[in-house]
């Protein structure tokens, strides 16, 4: 059970991870079309490639609440639909199918085979499937292999057998693949090493001599057991296997990829070997051997080829040539293996070749790429290397092969899918003075790294912007007859007149439309079949098709203040507070006023009529907003015309109303809503009962400090509400979940808007922005975080903001990469050893690599004005930047300096280095330039830097030190050994410093100024491999660790007070140690497993007027939040909701949700919002059941869930 706590947080993901662990290709919908299924963290996503529009869109994403380790597609013989097998950490094998009709995943089988969790001998690491879909093998890194026989029963349903064991103890598996053997018994190939003798051998000779084996496991379908059919030693360095087509398509067997070579092996075939070509180039080391890191086999009619990728990103095309007998018939014998350079694409974790001629590259880091094949490299000038020239024995030497990389010729990039993976650091700040802050982050590795600005908003495509002679107040578009497909006129209302523009090839003014142009307009409507209506302050103008004009004048001394119309009805409010109601006579199209006028208590500010429902003559309700802060629903039924139906009291006067039907996730169909905008900038959405006119289920959202105007627009085929306040917001239902979303548009604030439809732009919006007319469209719904990227040079590690100006300073470093100076030196060197080659853009081809070299730099990034890097400072002497801070020195009249910590000749594992340095830079030109002041040598690379009370605090090894700025170098003022291993982070408030250790959680340290002493006074009892921390308040720290946990620790009140007592701190110094640590221990408040490794945590707000929350980012690209609960009542509610959801909507991969969130430490004080947000997606009967159990209505529960999110985040 969840451990209780006095503090509760609600955990939500606002951007799921974008790193793809594995991507598979298949016909998952059962049609000819191929889809891609990817695993990112705990999410299973199905993407649909669109060969016409050349893009790839996610169709469905599901959180399985478990770690997805491997995926495999399979298809039963004769079927046209692929199923997905998931190997996860649940100790179970899961088979799911995609149901396109309902757009969901359906679990077909869940078979338990072992303990849960990622363990050495529990299968789940490797998954191999027989190409004919008859069996699959799931294996662990060591020992265990289980074979499941897949079949179908009489009902054509998929069946799965009990597992057959193929275990072999003390055996490590490097790779595993299903062999293509046609319809013979299924065979699986594995690369194995048996270490049993190595452990027993004291001389080390056995280790030297051990061989790597290629092992074939055959599943005898007749006898129903698995045998080790064949094994043979292969290259010791081999790490990867690829299936070679068999049966009628090819020779069967496998390709074995090792260091610098690829070998073809099969049981009754000779072996063939080709080298992996190395890059030619001045800065390339000719001795460096490459590995194959990803590969894909593609079968076409009668032929097949492989694309293999080396660690540089170079793709090589490998083909197999078959032997022919004298008659020219293929004998089934392999004759040779051929390899040649194909193209260079980003380093992939998976490559997928689509039948429609596309290549999907699931990148290891950075954006995923979607390429189109232009040719297959058949007739080009690339040098081919074939196995004839190379010995097949892996121990024999050979001359290496070389190729010259060149820009891509065979593939063309058609779409780059944004991915923030890896997200190295982030900061939430409002630099653009908008309502809501932005998220600034550094992402990616190597030359593909970027600085990204994330903004909440929908992407808008600007179509027209044209200035107008005077600022208009309102705008409408209208068709001329009901049957028209597109709008014909744009009507602009000014303070003293009206302008009519016709829409056509070009937009121009027209005068013979019958509209009154000498007065402002209040409403425009296409009425009945072919008439037009213009409402102006003095009356209603009814323009018939033959340009006859009927005018209904407003009563004397009164004018029209508000109006609403639909295809058959008109309601106007007079300045006297009366409402006049008109209906069109269906016979002759004339307007008839209802004989009574309804007098309202206050002045009417706004009115709304809904659309006339299909098959009816009128809409039932009129919504009336009055300045006494009420909205009334009046009946329009002829029997009870203009009678009150219901009233809603508001917090402020209503400024706009809109009755419209929208898709609704709670009822599953469409529901009538009343949208209300208030003068105070608040937007409300209430359900309007279609029979009784009752208002219920009000949801509130603050949009901005300006009054709200509401408009109905059509976006991507759905009726959406456009709400204008200090920003424009769009209310729509999410294409995937059908839940209601309200998202700001990334567009300047508008004053008025209207739906716009023309031939060029069938679904657009026309709006007024100050004195210009804007026409735009919204292309994509669902993705509500907009990204802007600025390219960086190397892998960014950390960044800081300038204290006053909107500038960031990033430190970047790349391991095993040549520094620019070394590179230049090699290029200039005349005694070239490795040939000449053009210098290619590093963003596509990477930098030349060399063991032990570092390339590192500091960048000044301006994400607001120029959106670019302003300057780059390269570090020399194989130094790499490891930490950065902007520190104010009291001794320098509070001037701020940029401090950068570096290390020389760093080796990552095991950690070693020659020295560390602290660089000091002065900000010049408002931070746009940096001036180097001096550098100070320290014993170790300083992993943490922090400004502390007008001086610099540095974490060096297991010590922290206080430095002041001197003329020649930094001056050490104070130091203390506070942490057991390595200081990786520092946080401070007042005299308190929170030191995070690489392995041993955090230590609280107090600085005693008089004594100049740093005294640790409280630490933790659990080792936590801290990756990032932040102080939540003076006593509490929130942090994340390298195993994917987020936790909150609190110092006991008494200890906290004692530490800050005046005096020397002697009592702290002499207090007795407790279990070799500090005298006191921290208390755990919250603990939650989030799966991704947190790289930054920050306490901040995300929306205007929102509360403080914790925003964290994970290395795989996750952005999540923790929202503190205010009351116990909500906690109880969500706890029981969670409990019901765990049992009613059990995670699909078979991992128990509670155990998953308690992966390392039992979950404490955290409600999983991602689980709670599954509630609206449940089938209706389950929703009802849970609602009944919780004693609440379905709508109430859904409101509570959506409020949790919208109050503080997106």
């Amino acid at each position, binding site marked *: 059970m969840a451990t209780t706590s006095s503090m509760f947080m609600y955990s939500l993901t606002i951007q799921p991870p974008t*790193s793809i*662990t594995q991507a598979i290709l298949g016909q998952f919908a059962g049609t000819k079309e191929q889809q891609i299924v990817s695993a990112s*963290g705990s999410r299973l996503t199905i993407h649909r490639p669109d060969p016409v529009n050349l893009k790839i869109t996610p169709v469905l994403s599901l959180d399985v609440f478990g*770690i*997805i*380790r491997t995926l495999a597609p399979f298809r039963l013989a004769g079927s046209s639909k692929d199923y997905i097998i998931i190997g996860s*950490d649940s100790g179970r094998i899961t088979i799911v199918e995609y149901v396109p009709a309902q757009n969901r995943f359906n679990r077909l089988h869940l078979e338990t085979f072992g303990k849960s969790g*990622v*363990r*050495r*001998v529990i299968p*789940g*690491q490797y998954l191999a499937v027989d190409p004919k879909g008859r069996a699959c093998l799931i294996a*662990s*890194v*060591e*020992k265990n292999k289980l074979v499941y026989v897949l079949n179908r029963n009489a009902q054509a349903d998929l069946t799965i057998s009990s597992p057959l064991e193929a275990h072999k*103890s003390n055996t*490590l*598996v*490097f790779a595993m693949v299903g062999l293509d053997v046609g319809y013979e018994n299924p065979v699986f190939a594995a690369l194995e*090493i048996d*270490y049993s003798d*190595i*452990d*027993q*051998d*004291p*001389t*080390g000779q056995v*280790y030297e001599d*051990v061989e790597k084996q290629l092992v074939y496991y055959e599943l005898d379908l007749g006898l129903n057991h698995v045998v080790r059919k064949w094994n043979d030693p292969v290259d010791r360095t081999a*790490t*990867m296997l690829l299936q070679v087509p068999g049966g009628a398509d090819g020779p069967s067997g496998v390709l074995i990829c090792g260091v610098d070579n690829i070998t073809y092996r099969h049981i009754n075939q000779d072996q063939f070997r080709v080298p992996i070509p190395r890059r030619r180039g001045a800065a390339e080391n000719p001795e460096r051997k490459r*590995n194959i*890191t*990803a590969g894909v086999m593609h079968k076409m009619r009668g032929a097949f080829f492989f694309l293999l990728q080396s*660690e540089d990103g170079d793709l090589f095309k490998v083909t197999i040539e078959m032997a022919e007998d004298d008659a020219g018939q293929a004998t089934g014998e392999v004759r040779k293996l051929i390899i040649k350079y194909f193209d260079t694409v980003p*380093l992939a*974790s998976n490559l997928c070749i689509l039948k429609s001629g596309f290549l999907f590259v699931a990148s*290891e*880091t950075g954006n995923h790429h979607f390429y189109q094949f232009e040719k297959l490299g058949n007739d080009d000038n690339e040098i081919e290397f074939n196995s004839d020239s190379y010995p097949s024995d892996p121990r024999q030497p050979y001359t290496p092969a070389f190729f010259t990389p060149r820009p891509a010729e065979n593939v063309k990039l058609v779409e780059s899918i944004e991915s923030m*993976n*890896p997200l190295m650091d982030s900061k939430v700040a409002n630099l653009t003075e908008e309502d809501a802050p932005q998220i600034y982050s550094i992402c990616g*590795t190597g030359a593909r790294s970027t600085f990204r600005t994330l903004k909440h908003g929908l992407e808008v495509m600007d179509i027209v912007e044209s200035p107008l002679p005077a600022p208009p107040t309102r705008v409408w578009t209208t068709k001329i007859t009901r049957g028209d497909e597109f709008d014909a006129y744009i009507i602009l209302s000014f303070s003293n007149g009206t302008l009519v523009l016709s829409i056509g090839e070009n937009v121009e003014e027209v005068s013979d439309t019958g509209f009154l142009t000498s007065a402002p307009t209040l409403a425009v409507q296409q009425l009945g079949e072919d008439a037009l209506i213009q409402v102006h302050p003095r009356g209603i103008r009814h323009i018939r098709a033959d340009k006859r004009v009927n005018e209904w004048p407003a009563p004397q001394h009164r004018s029209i203040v508000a109006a609403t119309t639909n295809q058959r009805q008109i309601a106007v409010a007079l300045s006297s507070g009366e409402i006049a109601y008109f209906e069109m006579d269906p016979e002759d199209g004339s307007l008839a006023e209802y004989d009574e006028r309804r007098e309202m208590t206050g002045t009417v500010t706004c009115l709304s009529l809904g659309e006339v429902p299909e098959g009816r003559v009128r809409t039932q309700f009129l919504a009336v907003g009055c300045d006494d802060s009420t909205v009334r629903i009046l009946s329009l039924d002829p029997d009870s015309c203009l009678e009150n139906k219901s009233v809603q009291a508001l917090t402020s006067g209503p400024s706009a109303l809109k009755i419209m039907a929208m898709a609704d996730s709670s009822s599953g169909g469409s529901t009538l809503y009343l949208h209300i905008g208030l003068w105070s900038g608040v937007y409300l959405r209430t359900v309007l009962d279609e029979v009784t006119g009752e208002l219920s289920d009000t949801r509130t959202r603050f949009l901005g400090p300006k009054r709200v105007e509401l408009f109905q627009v059509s976006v991507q085929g759905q009726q959406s509400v456009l709400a204008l306040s200090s920003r424009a917001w769009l209310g729509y239902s999410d294409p995937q979940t059908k839940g209601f979303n309200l998202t700001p548009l990334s567009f300047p604030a508008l004053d008025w808007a209207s739906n716009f439809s023309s031939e060029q732009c069938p679904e657009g919006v026309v709006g007024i922005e100050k004195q210009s007319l804007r026409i735009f469209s919204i292309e994509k719904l669902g993705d509500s975080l907009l990204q802007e990227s600025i390219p960086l040079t190397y*892998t960014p590690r950390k960044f800081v903001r300038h204290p006053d100006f909107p500038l960031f300073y990033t430190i970047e470093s*790349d*391991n*095993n*990469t040549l520094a620019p100076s070394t590179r230049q030196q090699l290029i200039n060197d005349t005694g070239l050893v490795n040939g000449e080659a053009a210098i290619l853009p590093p963003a596509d081809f990477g930098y030349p690599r060399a063991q032990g070299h570092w390339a590192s730099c500091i960048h000044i990034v301006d994400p607001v004005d120029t959106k670019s890097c302003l300057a780059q400072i390269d570090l020399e002497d194989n130094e790499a930047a490891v930490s950065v801070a902007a520190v104010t020195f009291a001794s320098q009249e509070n001037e701020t300096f940029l401090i950068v910590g570096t290390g020389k000749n760093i080796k*990552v*594992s095991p950690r070693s280095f020659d020295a560390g340095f602290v660089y000091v830079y002065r900000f010049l030109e408002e931070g746009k330039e940096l001036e180097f002041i001096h550098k100070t040598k320290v014993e170790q690379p300083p992993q943490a830097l922090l400004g502390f009370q007008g001086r610099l605090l540095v974490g060096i090894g297991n010590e922290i030190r206080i430095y002041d700025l001197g003329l020649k170098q930094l001056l050490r003022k104070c130091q203390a050994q506070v942490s057991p291993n390595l200081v990786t982070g520092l946080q401070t408030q007042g005299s308190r410093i929170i030191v995070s250790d690489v392995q041993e959680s955090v230590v609280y340290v107090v600085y005693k100024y008089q004594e100049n002493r740093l005294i640790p006074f409280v630490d933790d009892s659990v080792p936590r491999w801290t990756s990032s921390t932040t102080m939540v308040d003076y006593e509490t720290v929130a942090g994340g660790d*390298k*195993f*994917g946990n987020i936790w909150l620790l609190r110092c006991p009140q008494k200890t906290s007070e004692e530490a800050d007592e005046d005096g020397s701190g002697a009592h702290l110094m002499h207090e007795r140690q407790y279990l070799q640590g500090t005298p006191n221990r921290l208390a755990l408040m919250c603990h939650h497993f989030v799966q*991704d*490794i947190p790289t930054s945590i920050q306490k901040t707000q995300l929306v205007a007027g929102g509360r403080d929350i914790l925003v964290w980012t*994970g*290395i*795989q690209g996750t952005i999540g939040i923790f929202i503190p609960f205010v009351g116990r009542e909500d906690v109880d509610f969500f706890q029981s909701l969670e409990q019901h959801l765990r049992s009613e909507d059990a995670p699909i991969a078979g991992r128990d949700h509670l155990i998953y969130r308690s992966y390392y430490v039992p979950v404490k004080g955290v409600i999983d919002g991602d689980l709670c947000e599954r509630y609206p997606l449940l089938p209706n009967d389950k929703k009802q059941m849970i609602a009944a159990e919780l004693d609440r209505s379905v709508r109430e529960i859904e409101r509570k869930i959506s409020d949790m999110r919208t109050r503080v985040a997106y």
Partner: protein
Amino acid sequence: MADKLRTLQNLEHLQSRYLGTGHADTTKHEWSSNLHRDSYASYIGHPALLEYMSIGMGESREKVRAAMVEKMVRPVGVKNVEEEG
């Protein structure tokens, strides 16, 4: 005697079934080899952790994965004869 035999058999059964189950004479080398193999298997099995390490090392994920399986072959060096005495 029969009891002792059964205990022994039970233990052997456990050892064959659950990898790393110790016995009275487990050496430091056996114990630490086992521990390191467990750790490497865990690094490989958690995608986020593998990515974290591969970025730290500046190598590709697949290369780091293969290197870790390779390290599992002999994680803590040769067996020390003296220690076992």
